[in-house]
């Protein structure tokens, strides 16, 4: 092995009682794509923060091209040639794409805009440089992050779960990009939960478990099962078989919904028809930014329509389009939004207080006052049932890792015993163990006769759990497809708009 580009020796970092990293050694070779594997809370994000200079280690030494260095800030790391794309984005929402990039990359705005377009075309990361970030979907924001990093021409690029929001076609393109970058002398640290991706692109993998290195291997020589075992230290539970069952009554119905958004950067919906029955899981596939966020808000009630349009969205056999989220929840609706921090949960509040957010109708209130005992009981039950790794109900939601917070929010909504459960991106950024658990809970809900609607960008996930799949493309929804008879290719065609949408057939 050639002299490593980056070496870590004995990196240790604690947050209070939690020992996030314990004596980690890592060597990243030049011209390599190096995977960092691990469950949520295994210490991957902490390790990346140490490398990128966001946090300082308690102990340990970093060597960069053989020289001992101290990475005291991200600016310092960038000066050495280390770039990072975060899982939680660091973009200013009120600025445009090009303005965000000009904060870090020198150059005039027209020049930068030209480079953004060029990089977007080269790497399949197309984004409008003049769009405001607040109007972009999560997937589009990640594209901006990746482009911004590529513009600083790093020698080492850290990608924190880069494929989680990309459509399958773009994943292939991104991998081409990464390989091309590697061949031009850039090393890549690739954090992922997706074992097949690591198989197909990485030439080295370091597996972390509970803050320690449990394996240092060539992923091409080990199968997914072995990798998973190193990562979670146990065998994966078998997937629940989603058998075909007779379905019950309609719990959600949209019949040709048209919705024009005021925001010019938002996606308007055209003729969206969608029905979810009791006892089935309907999945909405599609590349992010095709109207998922807008559709989700219309179903959740965060976007309300006028009184006269109440039948545009029907739930439990009632027109609800004019009702707000709380009134829809009163009918038996529950919802897990795609963004957890700041929408699904209040980061500064304790988990107990975050239970109250939507679970207050479960007897957590008495005459308009909070029953702290009931609140704590509910929270403890949710933490236990859904295996949320946290010191306790008093922990702040913002201190939990993404996957643990997701388990908490999904758990909270499931414990509401809804008639209609709507989950957007159920396993985005969640490790395999937790993702499997969440999927099994969704299937269990379906088997109990709950109507479940799932929006996801992970096709495999939808194939695994859904009875029917519809594809959203440019604000239009495809006809219902059966995952047992339709192949991924057919759904993929709808995703890129190669099939004629149903609304135009009718």
């Amino acid at each position, binding site marked *: 092995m050639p002299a490593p580009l980056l070496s870590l020796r004995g990196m240790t970092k604690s947050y209070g009682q939690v020992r996030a990293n314990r004596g980690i050694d890592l060597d990243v070779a030049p011209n390599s794509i190096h995977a960092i594997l691990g469950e949520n809370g295994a210490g991957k994000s902490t390790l990346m923060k140490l490398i990128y200079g966001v946090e300082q280690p308690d102990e340990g030494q970093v060597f960069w091209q053989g020289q001992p260095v*101290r990475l*005291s800030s991200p600016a*310092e790391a960038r000066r050495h040639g280390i770039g990072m794309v975060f899982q939680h984005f660091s973009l200013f929402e009120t600025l445009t794409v090009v303005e965000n990039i000009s904060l870090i990359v020198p150059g005039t705005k027209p020049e930068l805009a030209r480079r953004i377009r060029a990089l977007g075309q080269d790497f399949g990361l197309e984004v409008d440089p003049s769009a405001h970030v607040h109007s972009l979907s999560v997937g589009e924001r990640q594209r901006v992050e990746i482009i911004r990093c590529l513009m600083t021409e790093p020698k080492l690029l850290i990608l924190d779960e880069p494929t989680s929001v990309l459509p399958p076609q773009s994943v292939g393109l991104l991998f081409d990009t990464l390989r091309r970058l590697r061949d031009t002398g850039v090393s890549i640290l690739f954090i992922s939960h997706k074992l097949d991706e690591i198989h197909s692109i990485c030439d080295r993998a370091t597996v972390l478990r509970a803050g320690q290195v449990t394996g240092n291997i060539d992923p091409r020589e080990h199968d997914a099962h072995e990798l998973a075992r190193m990562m979670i230290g146990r065998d994966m539970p078998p997937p629940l078989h989603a058998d075909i069952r007779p379905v019950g009554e309609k719990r959600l119905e949209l019949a040709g919904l048209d919705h024009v958004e005021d925001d010019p950067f938002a996606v308007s919906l055209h003729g969206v028809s969608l029905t979810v029955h009791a006892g089935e899981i309907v999945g909405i596939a599609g590349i992010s930014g095709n109207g998922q966020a807008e559709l989700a808000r219309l179903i959740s009630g965060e976007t309300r329509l006028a009184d006269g349009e109440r039948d545009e969205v029907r739930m439990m056999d009632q027109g609800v389009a004019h009702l707000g*989220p709380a009134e829809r929840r009163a009918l038996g609706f529950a919802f897990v939004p795609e963004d957890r921090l700041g929408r699904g949960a*209040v*980061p500064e509040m304790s988990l107990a207080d975050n239970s109250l*957010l939507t679970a207050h109708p479960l007897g957590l209130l008495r005459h308009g*006052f909070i029953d702290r005992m009931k609140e704590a009981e509910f929270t403890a039950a949710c933490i236990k049932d859904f295996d949320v790794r946290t010191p306790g109900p008093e922990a702040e939601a913002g201190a939990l890792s993404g996957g643990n917070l997701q388990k908490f929010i999904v758990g909270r909504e499931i414990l509401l015993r809804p008639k209609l459960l709507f989950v957007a991106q159920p396993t985005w950024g969640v490790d395999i163990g937790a993702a499997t658990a969440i999927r099994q809970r969704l299937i269990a809900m379906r088997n109990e006769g709950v109507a479940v609607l799932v929006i996801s960008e992970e096709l495999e996930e939808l194939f695994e759990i859904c009875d029917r799949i519809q594809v959203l493309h440019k604000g239009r929804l495809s006809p219902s497809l059966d995952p047992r008879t339709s192949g991924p290719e057919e759904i993929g065609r709808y995703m890129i708009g190669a099939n004629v949408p149903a609304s135009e057939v009718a």
Partner: protein
Amino acid sequence: MFVLPRLIRRERASARMAVLAPIIAIAAAVTVNLILYLVMGKNPGAVFHAMLLEPFMSWASFSEVLLKTGPLLLIAQGLAIGFRAKVFNIGAEGQFILGAIFASAIPVWFPQATGGWIWPAMLILGAIGGALWAVIPAFWRVRLNANEILVTLMMSLIAAQVLNYLLLGPWKDPKGFNFPQSVMFQYDAMVPILIPGTRVNVSLLIALVSAILAWVFMQKSFRGYQFLVGGLAPRAAAYAGFSEARAIWLSLLIGGFAAGLAGAAEVAGPIGQLQRSISTGYGYAAIIVAYLGGLHPIGIVASSLLMAVLYIGGDNAMVSADLPVAAVRVFQGSLLVFYLAATTFVRYRLDIGHDAKGGTP
């Protein structure tokens, strides 16, 4: 190479810093202001004595502190509820004036009336007046998304002119030698004295009760919780279906109600008539009080007492240490600035001395 200290976000809010912040702010404000007095050629020792010790050294002056505490406490409790929901009512001064005007209507129009109902009716009317003045910014905010900070502030300036108009015109005391003030109120229009021999009246009790109510509302009630969610994470409030419009309306109405009540208690208490100088900036000082108390009902009880000491002590210092009136305002302002700076460390910690020159240049 010189390295600037850096702020690093803490894993979670530090409870210790939350308690220490106001203490640090007071210490820093005292230090800086004493230096300022020294530069001005005043004797800092004398100023310190007059300002911070004298208010406690006689029952007479401490009772005056209590008298000032009442309105500050009342207004600040009302404002803090809105501030925690991130509804910034900066116009308590105007709502206070409207409360005073509404309350004065009874003794001005019925100067001969007698009966124990008069002062409670005045307080209620004053509270309604303050709340009505807050209706206007609430309506514009909900309907047109007009910034409530600007509207409430401008409404305060209008309120001052309404007061001027009344005192120079229809409500001027005909036997008042053309001074811009109303008639002196009759005995039954005065709030009963709480502590005999002082000017401290029942309104202090009302203010303390309001602190308890505010505590119950913010810490125990679901509505108070909804306000907090709306302030901390507006999108989470929208997701859960908590009405933003209702939070704005309630925040402003509660703030206006409390300020109006304080205004009424002031004219029906120590002043005894409607005058131009009914408020010595209570509405603005209460903003400082609310933040200095950490927007927490219990903290506000302590901070309103402190601010009242500064009012009385400032007056003392003007007399005995020859301090200009602006110096008191500077003290108040620097207190808020230091407090806001100190609260940064509740969520952040300072990283000093970590040299960044580790890497080879």
